[in-house]
């Protein structure tokens, strides 16, 4: 079966060891995690993992089953890109001189909907949120001038469909 990009969303209790437990499930099957993000969710005390992997659909189903059965996992899902709204974020650190010497940079920043976070004598920092391709395009455009530092975050995403986690937790309380 052909590999596809899937976004895995996992709602969990806020637990120290859980990241290990979840990443081990991917590691056992020798699956490279493309990106991983953990954060608070819309529910107090409940964390949300967003993991991007490229695997055949048959395999992601099995992995979701193995994640879902971990005690402190409330619910795990996998989605295709079209089922979610997703973004990544990145930061570029660039020499300040270039901002004035290379007028083109200002146009690139404007056209890419990037934002200047800070400017000082030595460097300035650009922030850009968007799809991977947009960030990669910006990277290519800026790399011509020289990038002092670059970093990109993991994907974060919300689903178009309702997640019903609150309902599941309410059902438990009754």
């Amino acid at each position, binding site marked *: 079966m052909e590999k596809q990009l899937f976004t895995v969303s996992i709602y969990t*209790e806020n637990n120290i060891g859980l990241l290990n437990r979840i990443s081990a499930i991917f590691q*056992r099957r020798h699956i490279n995690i493309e990106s991983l993000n953990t954060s608070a969710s819309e529910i107090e005390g409940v964390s949300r993992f967003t993991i991007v992997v490229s695997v055949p659909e048959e395999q992601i189903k099995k992995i979701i089953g193995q994640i*879902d059965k971990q*005690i402190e996992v409330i619910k795990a899902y996998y989605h295709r890109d079209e089922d979610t709204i997703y973004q990544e974020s990145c930061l570029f650190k660039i020499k300040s001189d270039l901002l004035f010497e290379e007028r083109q940079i200002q146009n690139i920043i404007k056209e890419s909907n990037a934002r200047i976070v800070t400017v000082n004598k030595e460097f300035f920092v650009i922030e850009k949120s968007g799809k991977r391709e947009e960030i990669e395009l910006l990277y290519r455009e800026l790399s011509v001038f020289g990038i002092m530092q670059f970093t990109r975050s993991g994907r974060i995403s919300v689903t178009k469909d309702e997640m019903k986690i609150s309902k599941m937790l309410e059902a438990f309380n009754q």
Partner: protein
Amino acid sequence: MDANTMKETQAIQVNKKSTKTTHRITGSEAIIRCLIAEGVDILYGYPGGAIMPVYDELYKYQDKIHHVLTRHEQCAAHAAQGYARISGRVGVAMATSGPGATNLITGIADAQIDSTPMVCITGQVFSHLLGSDAFQETDIIGISTPVTKWNHQITKASEIPSVIAKAFYIAKSGRPGPVLIDITKDAQVEEFDFEYEKCTAVRSYNPVPTTNPETVAKAADLINSAKNPMIVWGQGVILAEAENELKAVIEKSGVPAAWTILGASAIPTSHPLNIGMVGMHGNYAPNKLTNECDVLIAIGMRFDDRVTGKLDTYAKQAKIIHFEIDPAEVDKNVKSDIAVLGDAKESLRQLLPLLEEKSYPQWLQKFKDLYAIEFEKVIKNDLYPTKEGLTMGEVLKEINIQTKAEAAIVSDVGQHQMIACRYAEFNTTKSNITSGGLGTMGFALPAAIGAKMAAPDREVVAIIGDGGYQMTIQELGTIFQQRVPVKIVVLNNEFLGMVRQWQQLFFDKRYASTEMTNPDFVAIAKGYFIEAKKVTKRDELKEAVAEMIACDGPYFLEVCVEKEDNVFPMIPAGASVSDVRLS
């Protein structure tokens, strides 16, 4: 006095009151009282620096809870497994930090893959030393994560009651498994107000999916319309205590039923519809006919690769019904046409009234015909040998006869294990205790200790090879000290027999590191003051087994068997179940 001050004063008074009613104790004492509250009567372990406060409390509570000092922490875990497997209760093992904790890991991994309920408690260095490479510090939470159902580190005494309660609930409920609780030394010595409440639910954990009656009805329709159906049941039936339900289903539907290695003993061996074991060294008929049945009904089994052989050619002609408690097992290895999620007992209870009373005489005859072939080519030579050397099979046959198929058989890993599982006869459930999924050599001797202590009225016979025996032979010390009347049979072929068999069949007889130069096993047993005997000839066997069974205390019997016998039938690794070999 203003209103606020009054409130504060009242609060202090209430607090004073509550300290009187609740009991202020140390974390260590709390651990013991939690175990007692969970009904633990025996635990297995080994003391050391980071768990000493708990052992000090065990000393005080020794009239209520019996701690068994094993000779190695791995064996504490295996003993707890044996205890759990024969009784269905949660086995408990305890160890200190660092090497004590890491030594438990093999037993924990074994319990995880064989779904055995177990709680392991490990001591840990003081919480302020965590992460500093302190003496005997190891990240046991990190190490045990992939092989535990759940694990947790406690750094405050006040967490002890709720975490231990949760540990027992998780270990036993749903698909059982091992839980490890790591407790820092400061949490053990800290005092707090003790109160214990059993855990009955965890919000992120659904142990038993609800059986869907509609799916059960679909399964019943498919079974009723089948022409050549076959059941394969696994340990799930035993864990759900669904033996009677399974028997009723088999008898009403008339469907021939085979078992996986861990499913053995759920239905008596002598049952007319019990068609034997499936898998790599299972019986000829159920393996062969897996690829001829039209409906395969899997109950509480997980289609392990040792059961299925090559998946691409496994029961492709059949519709598959999978009764399963763990959703992650459904379609993991074999795609099912109908998956009935839920507890086996409940699902089979719902299935029974929907089944038509049927029998399949012609289909059953096929199993009998293939059995006749297996008998002629394999079983006859194993059980009624005419050659000079003793066979492992005839030893099992003698044990069957003399224990009237009432013994619990605890086997280790290798050729003798396959022979034990093939030929041991069972009348009682929970009687085949062996390391199935992990294949842990050294399992049997300590597991037999746990089994015998959990079921002192039962005859417990450990069947072990000369290789596995020497992996945990030191537990003879535990047997001697605790006077555990376990019967130990070592089938000695002076080889790591199963590996040697593969070397013979697949590596042109290059016997790399499989030959064993063994010590005087009888002298070793006698060194531990255990009665012991060695048998080398067929005419000595019957009397020796009789002497062993008659012995009130522990007994060691070494049987020197043919050195290069092979176990057949055999599905070579990666081959199809229908390519099962008889020689």
